[in-house]
C-alpha cells in the first residue's frame, strides 16, 4: 500500500510539473503578451518595449522556462506580472474560496444525484423515474453558461438570493453569526449552478450501474431468497454499484477544486477559476502556470482519491493494486 501510494504521489508530481510547464509555454507562445494591452491606451512603442524588457518577456523561451522551472522546483512559482505579488500567495487565497464552493456543490450534487440515480436505475417504469430522467437530460444538455445566467435571472426576479458575490460588504461587522448567515445566502446560487449538471451526471452514471448490478445473478438470488427488493437496492446492491460513480467522484472533486471559470465569473465568486481567467486574459504567464499547477494538483489528488474509494467499493481491485502492483497474477 505504501509503495502504491508513493508511486501515485510521484506520478502526481510529474503531472503537476508537466501541466504547469505546458501552461507556461503555451501562454508564452500564444499571440500577444502582458504588454499588449498597453497598446491602444496611448502608450508609446518605446514604453511598451520597456515594459517587455522590465518583465523579461523578450527573453528567449528556453532561458525563461528553465529559470522558472528551477525556481518552481523549490516551490517558488514566481511573482505575478499583474499584481506584483507572489503567485503562491494569490493562488492560496483563491483556492480557499473555490474549495468552499466545490464542497458545497459536490455535497448538493451527491445528495440529489445519487438517490435519483438509484431510483431510476432500480425502476424502469413509473412517473418519478421518468421525471428524473427527463430533468437530468435537460440539465445535461444546457451549458453551464445558460444555467448560471438563468439562475442569476431567477435570483434577480425573486430576490431570494443575492445575484453574485461571496459576502456582502461589512457582513461581519454585525457579528460572526450575521456574517455566516450572509455567507449562507450567497452560497446557493453558484453552488446550484455547478451542482445541477453534476447531479444529472451522477444520476446517469449511478442509474446505469445500479441497473447493471440488479441484473447480476447475485441480485436475483438474493431476491429469490426472499429479501425485500427495497433492502436489496439500498443495502446489498448499493456498494457494488457505486464503483462507476466513485471512479468519477474524486476526479470531479479535483476538477471542481480547480475552479469553474464560467460560474465564478457570472456569479462574481472570487475563486481560482476566475483568477486563472483573469491571468489568461492579461497573459500573466507565471500566474497562469501557478493556477495550472494548483488545478492539476487538485486533479491528481482527486484521481488518487477516486482510486482509493473505488478500491474500497470493490475489494478485488484493492487486492490487485495494493498487493500486486504489477498485475502479473490474478
Amino acid at each position, binding site marked *: 500500500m505504501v509503495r502504491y501510494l508513493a508511486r501515485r504521489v510521484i506520478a502526481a508530481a510529474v*503531472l503537476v510539473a508537466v501541466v504547469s510547464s505546458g501552461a507556461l509555454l503555451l501562454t508564452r507562445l500564444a499571440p500577444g503578451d502582458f504588454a499588449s494591452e498597453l497598446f491602444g491606451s496611448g502608450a508609446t512603442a518605446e514604453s511598451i518595449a520597456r515594459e517587455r524588457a522590465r518583465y523579461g518577456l523578450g527573453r528567449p523561451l528556453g532561458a525563461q522556462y528553465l529559470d522558472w522551472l528551477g525556481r518552481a522546483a523549490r516551490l517558488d512559482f514566481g511573482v505575478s506580472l499583474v499584481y506584483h505579488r507572489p503567485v503562491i500567495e494569490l493562488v492560496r487565497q483563491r483556492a480557499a474560496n473555490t474549495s468552499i464552493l466545490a464542497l458545497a456543490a459536490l455535497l448538493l450534487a451527491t445528495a440529489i444525484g445519487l438517490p435519483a440515480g438509484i431510483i431510476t436505475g432500480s425502476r424502469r417504469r413509473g412517473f418519478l423515474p421518468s421525471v428524473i*430522467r427527463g430533468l437530468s437530460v435537460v440539465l445535461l*444538455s444546457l*451549458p453551464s453558461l445558460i444555467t448560471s445566467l438563468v439562475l442569476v435571472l431567477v435570483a434577480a426576479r425573486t430576490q431570494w438570493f443575492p445575484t453574485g458575490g461571496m459576502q456582502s460588504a461589512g457582513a461581519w461587522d454585525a457579528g460572526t453569526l450575521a456574517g455566516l448567515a450572509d455567507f449562507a445566502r450567497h452560497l446557493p446560487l453558484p453552488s446550484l449552478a455547478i451542482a445541477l449538471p453534476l447531479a444529472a451526471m451522477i444520476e446517469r452514471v449511478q442509474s446505469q450501474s445500479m441497473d447493471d448490478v440488479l441484473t447480476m445473478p447475485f441480485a436475483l438470488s438474493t431476491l429469490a431468497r426472499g429479501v425485500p427488493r427495497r433492502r436489496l437496492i439500498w443495502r446489498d446492491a448499493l456498494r457494488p454499484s457505486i464503483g462507476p460513480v466513485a471512479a468519477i467522484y474524486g*476526479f470531479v472533486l479535483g476538477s471542481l477544486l480547480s475552479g469553474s471559470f464560467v460560474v465564478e465569473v457570472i456569479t462574481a465568486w472570487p475563486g481560482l477559476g476566475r483568477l486563472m481567467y483573469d491571468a489568461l486574459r492579461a497573459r500573466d504567464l507565471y500566474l497562469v502556470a501557478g493556477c495550472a499547477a494548483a488545478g492539476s494538483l487538485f486533479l491528481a489528488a482527486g484521481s488518487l482519491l477516486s482510486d482509493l474509494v473505488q478500491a474500497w467499493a470493490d475489494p478485488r481491485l484493492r487486492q490487485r493494486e495494493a498487493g500486486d502492483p504489477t498485475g502479473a497474477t490474478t
Partner: protein
Amino acid sequence: MRTLAAAALALIAIAALAAPWLAPNDPGETFRAFLFAPPMRPHVIAPDGSWRRPFVHPLRLASRLEQRYEEDVSHPVPLRFFAGGKLARLADDSRGPWLPLGADREGRDLLARLLFGARTSLGLAVLATLAALLIGAMAGGFAGYRGGFVDEAIMRLAEFVLVLPAVYVVLVLRSALPLVMPSWAVFSLMAGIFALVGWPWVARAVRTVVATERTRDYAAAAVSLGAGPGRVLFGHLLPACRGLLGVQAILLLPSFILAEATLSYVGLGFPDTVPSWGSMLHQASDVNAIADFPWTLAPAAAIFAVTLAANLLVEKSSRVL
C-alpha cells in the same frame, strides 16, 4: 419509447438534410429591420373568427431601440405551400420575411439557422463521439487488460489530457493557422480536437470495467480455452462495456455540441456564414436575450431534443442486451 426516440432522431436527421427545402429563408440572409423579431406563427382563424387558409400577420416595428414589434393584423399574408422549391413561403414578401421561429440579434431566420446548423453540429458531434469512443475503448481496454506499467502509462496520459488546459492549445493553434479557414478544415480540426479531449473519459470508465471483468469466470474460462488476449479483450471484455459506452456517448455528444460554442468563442469556430447550434447558443447567452427574446434559446431546445432522444435510445438498447 425506443421506436419513438429512433423516429425522433431520424426526423431530426431528415430535417437537417432537407434544410434548404424546409427553411423559408437563407440562413445567412440578414433582415436588418427585423433584429430579434419574435416568432411569426401561422394562423388559420382570421380576426373575425372565420376559418381561412394558413396565413401570417406581418410584423411592424414598434420601437427599434427596445426591439419591440407588433403584429399587423390588418394585412394577413397567406402562405403558399410547395412553391419555389420551399415547403411553405409567403405569397407576398413585400411586407417583410416570414420568420417562423423569429430572428436572432442580426436579424437572421432562426429556423433556417437551426436547420442548417443541425448539419454542422450533429455531424461534428457524432463523428467526434465515435472517434472518442473508439480511441477510449481501445486505450481503456488495453490498460485494464494488461495492467501494470501499460495501465499506469495510459491512465497517467489520460489524466494529463484531462487536466490539459485545452483552451490554451486552441489559442496557440489559432495563431498558427490562417485567419480564415474553409469550413471543411474547421470541421475536421474540431472533430480531431474533440476526439483527443474526449477519449480519456471513456478510457477511464472502460478500464475500470475491464479490470473487474477479466477476473470473472467467463474471462478465465476463455483464457484457459486458449483464446488470445485480443480475442478475450475484443470478444468478451469490451462487449461487457457496451452499456457503459452508451452512457459515455450520451455524456459526450451534447458536451461536444456545446464545446463547439466555446471553441468558436476563442476564435476557432466556424465562420459566421456557417450556422451551428453551439455558436447560436453562445450568441443567445445574454441575460437580456434570455428574458426578453426567449426564442433565441431555440438551439438549447434542439440540443435537448437530440440528447433526450439519444438517451432513450441507448438506455433501452443496453437493457435489451
